[in-house]
């Protein structure tokens, strides 16, 4: 069921028990009333046991949630952890030295201030500073996390970064791959890291991703063509 919902409306859920709340849904601690707190599209999914409800809404301020894959910027290093910024003007998060593959007390990771990392949000209590990790804590492997060398970062809205990361039918990246070869790391915090061998390709990819978030998928092809054409024709 896809319908627009506004803060203060009623969710269209029949069952009242075993309702699992997602982003945008709020249960008032006093009255125990379930209501939306964000404006967007109501999404409810029912399984045998539970009803999952959330509001699909767009925003630009990232709030850490456990399990999110994020692109962060190292802004400081302390005795046992890094300070990482996921977004300008937001509270920093910590990345412990022990949250790396094969970490021990003796060997410290070699990241420096200014490096970009791809990481997973490990802890996100709202009263505490969030924690991220560069290792899959269940297997102990690196799972593609860690330093992002070179490349550049496209800043997109949060809804768009989710679309890029989770919607496998979204055509932008396959289309882009037809024109250029690139590596990409999509952060749910609205940061898309992209790296190409050719600087002009990298720049065109970044511009395309930033531009495409405001356009329909039918226009993506022409946007890609336009950006690559103008950059490749330019004389250095």
């Amino acid at each position: 069921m896809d319908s627009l919902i506004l803060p203060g409306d009623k969710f269209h859920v029949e069952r009242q028990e075993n309702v699992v709340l997602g982003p945008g849904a709020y249960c008032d601690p006093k009255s125990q009333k379930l209501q939306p707190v964000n404006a967007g599209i109501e999404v409810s999914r029912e399984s045998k046991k539970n009803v999952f409800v959330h509001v699909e809404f767009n925003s630009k301020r990232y709030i850490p949630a456990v399990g999110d894959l994020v692109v962060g910027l190292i802004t400081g290093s302390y005795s046992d952890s890094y300070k990482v910024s996921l977004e300008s003007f937001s509270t920093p998060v910590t990345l412990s030295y022990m949250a790396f593959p094969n970490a021990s007390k003796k060997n410290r990771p070699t990241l420096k201030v200014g490096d970009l990392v791809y990481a997973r949000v490990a802890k996100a209590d709202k009263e505490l500073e969030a924690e991220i990790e560069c290792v899959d804590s269940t297997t102990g492997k690196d799972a593609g996390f860690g330093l992002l060398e070179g490349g550049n970062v496209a800043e997109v809205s949060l809804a768009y970064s989710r679309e890029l990361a989770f919607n496998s039918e979204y055509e932008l990246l396959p289309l882009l791959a037809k024109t250029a070869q690139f590596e990409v790391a999509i952060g749910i915090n609205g940061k898309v890291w992209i790296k190409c061998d050719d600087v002009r390709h990298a720049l065109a990819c970044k511009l395309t991703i930033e531009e495409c978030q405001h356009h329909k998928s039918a226009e993506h092809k022409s946007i890609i063509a336009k950006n690559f054409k103008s950059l490749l024709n330019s004389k250095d």
Partner: protein
Amino acid sequence: MAFHAKNYPVAYPGQLLCPTFELGEKTETFQEIIRYVPGNGVTDEEYEVNGQKMRALTATVLGEVRFLEQVLQTVPTDEDQSKDEKDIGASKAELEQGKEEQEEEDKGEDNPEKVFIVTVADSNLAGKHVTEDFANNLPREGSIVLARITRISSQRANVEILALENKTIPVDSGVGSNGAGVTAPGGGSAAATLSVSQAAADLGETFKGIISARDVRATDRDRVKIMESFRPGDIVRAQVISLGDGSNYHLSTARNDLGVVFARAFNGAGGLMYAIDWQTMVAPNTGFMESRKCAKPF
């Protein structure tokens, strides 16, 4: 007549109270010396009278003068205690006899010195459960304070001190107090009185404190999770373990009667919660449970 036996109606700032010492009773064997020590609201000042310098205790605040005799500290032996226990059941005559013996013992000691602590305090505040006299009653090592959690991190909880629990003087001479000198926290007949800080919390005028994770509880200190012990906004009863640096007191809740006393569910958005055991609180209207390091209520 000795100064400590005199009846002062009221003392005002600058009023002379007594000399620093005087000679008391004289017997053939010894001369008693009475020494006066300045306490709260009293200062030891030097005066010049007829070209001669003298020291005298002077009041610095308006209030009632009190002389508190300081008992010379002797370690009580088992014999003494058993005698005390007998005294309770003993007849009055025996009791008095016992007292005389005690006095004789005291006189027989080598130290013929008596020490009185002289204090001046506002008599209007005495006997009230809550006073505003926080300025004359600052937190010191061992003090019990009520504090509010302002922020938490994984290593420590930052608090602001709201009130100081005073040492109780049992009004009923200890008849109803449950315990020798130690009061029941927050209740009982010898209920504690509080000195409440009048500083503005929103201007950061209050005294700050830190409860580090190791000082939250007495057992399993290395595995304390602050998130499961305190939340911002909780009111905790804590003990000052050190004055710390100029900016933070160091507090501890590692005792049964210390910990969270008041808390609301969902960081204050929900209803008031009550402790059901030493690490769980429950909100009666919703039934939700949250984990805290609770103070033993009685």
